[in-house]
């Protein structure tokens, strides 16, 4: 459903992505792995329309979305969980959810989805009147995921959802990713440093190194790949 073909992207004079091609199929969880500054976040930003690629094309369900603003991309059915959560700190939790539904016009559906989020994320219900900044990091990550789901996406792109969270919340986050994927059929592109966790729930994975894809395989094969084990999985 999502297809990147030969993407080159630059930050000023520095090339951040070289010839990146990847696909996400309907219903899949795909992990995008790699170390710091390898181009993972740039890939997300390019899909979302925050970074314009210099070369290559991106299609989503047959529609060209490269060089289109996020408003078009979000409407087409791609919703982001941004790096470091990026909640609106002085908006209430509920208002943050409503911002996630910004591109939607169906009032009834939005109210129903808010109820749905309350069920999926109990903490969102408990804290709905509080400013987002008063929540803990883990709670904020829950709100960030709920906000992204409020757009009713067909594809969720998540940028390091486990970053800076306690082990308990990391587990929760991955649990919810699986639930959302299985129960609602939302495809997920997951950018992670936590390769073990990411691959444990993914169907396939890509490994980025200095802006290039150096490995792509099924999650199983990646987990047992000796190169992967050495570089990313922490197996001696």
């Amino acid at each position, binding site marked *: 459903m999502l297809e990147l073909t030969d993407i080159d992207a630059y930050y000023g004079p520095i090339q951040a992505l070289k010839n990146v091609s990847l696909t996400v199929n309907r219903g899949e969880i795909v992990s995008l792995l790699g170390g710091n500054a390898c181009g993972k976040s740039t890939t997300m930003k390019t899909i*979302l329309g*925050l970074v314009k690629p210099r070369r290559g094309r991106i299609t989503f369900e047959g529609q060209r979305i490269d060089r289109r*603003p*996020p*408003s078009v*991309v*979000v*409407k087409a059915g791609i919703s*982001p969980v*941004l790096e470091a959560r*990026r*909640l*609106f*700190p*002085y*908006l*209430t939790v*509920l*208002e943050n959810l*409503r*911002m*996630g539904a*910004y*591109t939607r016009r169906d009032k009834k559906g939005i109210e129903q989805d808010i109820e749905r989020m309350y069920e999926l994320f109990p903490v969102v219900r408990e804290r709905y*009147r*509080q*400013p*987002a900044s008063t929540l803990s990091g883990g709670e904020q990550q829950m709100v960030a995921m709920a*906000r992204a789901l409020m*757009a009713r996406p067909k594809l969720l792109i998540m940028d390091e959802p486990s970053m800076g969270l306690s082990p308990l919340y990391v587990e929760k986050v991955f649990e919810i990713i699986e639930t959302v994927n299985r129960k609602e059929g939302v495809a997920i592109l997951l950018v992670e440093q936590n390769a073990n966790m990411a691959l444990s729930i993914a169907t396939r994975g890509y490994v980025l190194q200095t802006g290039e894809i150096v490995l792509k395989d099924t999650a199983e094969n990646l987990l047992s790949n000796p190169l992967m084990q050495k570089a990313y999985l922490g197996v001696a």
Partner: protein
Amino acid sequence: MFEQLINGLTQGSVYALLALGFTLIFGTLRMVTFAHGEVYMVGAYVGFEIIRLLAPSFMLAILVALAATALLGVIIEILSFHFLRDAPHVTSLLVTIGISILLINLAQLIWGPETKSIPYALLDQLDYGEFEIWGVYITYLQIAVLMVTVLLMTALYLLINKTKLGMVIRATAQDYEAAYAMGVNVNVVFSMAFAIGSMLGGVAGVLIGVYYNLFYPTMGQLYGLKAFSASVVGGLMSLPGSVVAGLLIGVIETFAVEFGASSLRHMISFLFMILILLFRPSGLFGGKELIQARGD
């Protein structure tokens, strides 16, 4: 004494209106505009011409000034901010200083450098009587000024806190990149915030212009500075702070006049602001932001 308090509140409510506009613009765009006083001046002249040429109606003057200054606000936003988003902040600030000088010169070309007034024959038709409560004289014009400012403040409060547009403005003010990633057209939001802020400034111009019946090209300079100061004293990002600081400054000035320091009134009001900032460097409502959350 009570009479002076009413005078002070009237004057202060207009400062508050100007400061609110400034705060809204700064809070959303993080940009200081030094053309705010000139938006106020343009609003005043528009009101002047409407009353002089069209009809002696306060309301009509305000409505036309609202439309004119909204448009002016969008133009200033595009010139000083839209094309300079990636430039250092000081560039935008300098452009607004340039626009302010340009507007003053344009006003001099159109209306001349001298002070203009609405002819008394027309003023009488605006129904300016006064009435007496407990030995205090209050003019209907003062009541009108107070009512218009309270009305606009209420409207702004409702807009910012109770509407979808208000929520989107607050969200954009807090993290415009995140808002952009949610699909918000942040350029439109920036223009809207600048337009709304300018409308408040334009109405303030009509109110003060008619209140004192004095119109001259540099009439906005001191007011622009007062708006900026009131906004800073209020906490720079706090809408309630702007209102409180504006009212305080108006009252202090009027009392300075009452106690015989008429020529020193601006000095006294700025001295007072310096004092507040010495003790509360982030302003009266610093830390509480425009952007603060509300439950619903």
